[in-house]
């Protein structure tokens, strides 16, 4: 059981927003056939 709340880490209150589609993809996109630093195993 985690005893510390997430909010206790931060100096500001949480701000939620619905992100744009592009912000919810990383490079890998479900496959490992890219070839950049961020794609190290």
């Amino acid at each position, binding site marked *: 059981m985690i005893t510390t709340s997430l909010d206790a880490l931060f100096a500001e209150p949480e701000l939620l927003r619905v992100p744009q589609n592009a912000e919810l993809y990383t490079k890998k*996109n479900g496959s490992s056939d890219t070839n950049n630093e*961020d*794609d190290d195993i």
Partner: protein
Amino acid sequence: MIKLHLGTHVRPTGWAWSDGRWTDGAAFIEPFDNSALEYAFAVRSDEAAACAIVRERRAGEPGLPPDAPVPNLIDAGEYERLLARARAWPLSAIIVELSHHCVRLHADRTGVAPVYLRPTPTGLYGSWDLLDLRSHIDVTDLNPAEVVRWVSHLGHYSRSTIFRTVQKLTERATATWTADSGITITYPEPAAHATPRALRPGADPVGYFADLLDHITGLRPLDPSELAVELSGGLDSANVAAGLSRVFGAPFSSAALIVDGPAGEQQRRRRKELLDRFRLDPDLELPIVEAYPFHPGGPRRTGAVFSPIDGTYSEATAQIYAHLANAGIHCVATGIGGDEAMCLSVAERQAAGTAWPVRPLPDYLGERCAPLLDHREADTAPAPVLAYSTLLGLACRSPEVMRHGLWPVSPLAAPEMLRLGESLPVAWRLRKRLLRGRLARLGLSHDVLYPALSEQFGPTVETAMHRDGIPLLRDFLRDGAILTEHGYVDRDRLLAACDRAEVTGEHAERLYRPLMLEAALRSMQ
């Protein structure tokens, strides 16, 4: 998590539990058979509704009674409470609601093992494995927009699939089917996500991350003797292994594909330190060069049926999963989700000067696909609880794991983990500082934290395509490819792309996707 076939006369009563499935005549609903899951079937006392629930077991909960799968008549209040608990289940769960002539399937927020649905005039077919539906699919009847997305590497999360007649039940969506109206998949409301905020002075995000990972890891009552971790040795899988070790003790099993060349030697060395540190035993290493994509003698070349959404290295991972299953493993832990939890936003990347290079769009689209290039993002599912790419990764990996009777567990893909990552200032996400910090606090070496060589599979794919992939693709194009014969891809332009790759010795991997799709479709015929 389920397979099903429902006829045109769906009803809530008349179901029986036998041999691991619910049946009503020829109709069936079959939950995935694994000790990580539990099932229940309840009929409302007025016999106008019934529900089948399949969910992950949760540690600390009494769990469903052993006879819960046996269809059970319960009063309306208890029925609604059962449904409410299932809808609020924090782990993976799917609900199948049956009423007279109508069925509804409700997906959860985790996106593990989405159900693929194929409605027909005689009934509804569904499965967590697209391959199960192949006898009901015309492999030439593709969704042109999905072909465009596939060959242009556009990650696209939606109810659409590569097959025009098959839809996917996406996270938190509801599928409704009647024999008269067919199928409708209704998307949920978009999910809100956290945004970066400043840390308090003295805050310890590494400590919080460690505690959170332990908490998430401990949500499932896993038996270490039946558990394996996919331990590539990267930061994600190393942290997953650390969490499993802390929560469940050791030993438990591990496995990995090993990259080629000097980077592979580095990978083995780094893994050895992790194996020793977390007492992982036994361990299996499979060099990717022994099972690279489309290698001669491999399953894709020798007639095995495979799915177009299978991962690039699924021929190799299948060997690993078969080995683990034979060794008595029931659950496989993965590092899926780590990239997304530590991901920088588009704006943050631009500010940091690490904007992603843009892949060139393919120039070989056929007459049915080329006009759709500007409409590739249509019908995207609304913002999910997790990241789109996590869900795409889970959709790709889960069937591969589950075909061997194994259940995938991905602690870094928990919503709470993503919320932490999205809340952190960019400095803690850049180069996965948070994950490195956790491993540093465990005393792991600089070699583990900061590998000198980049460990990637990309060069293997490039070599594989030059050696075997492009010649195979040429053979397909010569013989008459499904993709070209039906106007999805332009034969001459794709051949020209093959020529360019062979002449320049570069970018052969860009031809992997049309090869994979064509080969998969042929295998499914």
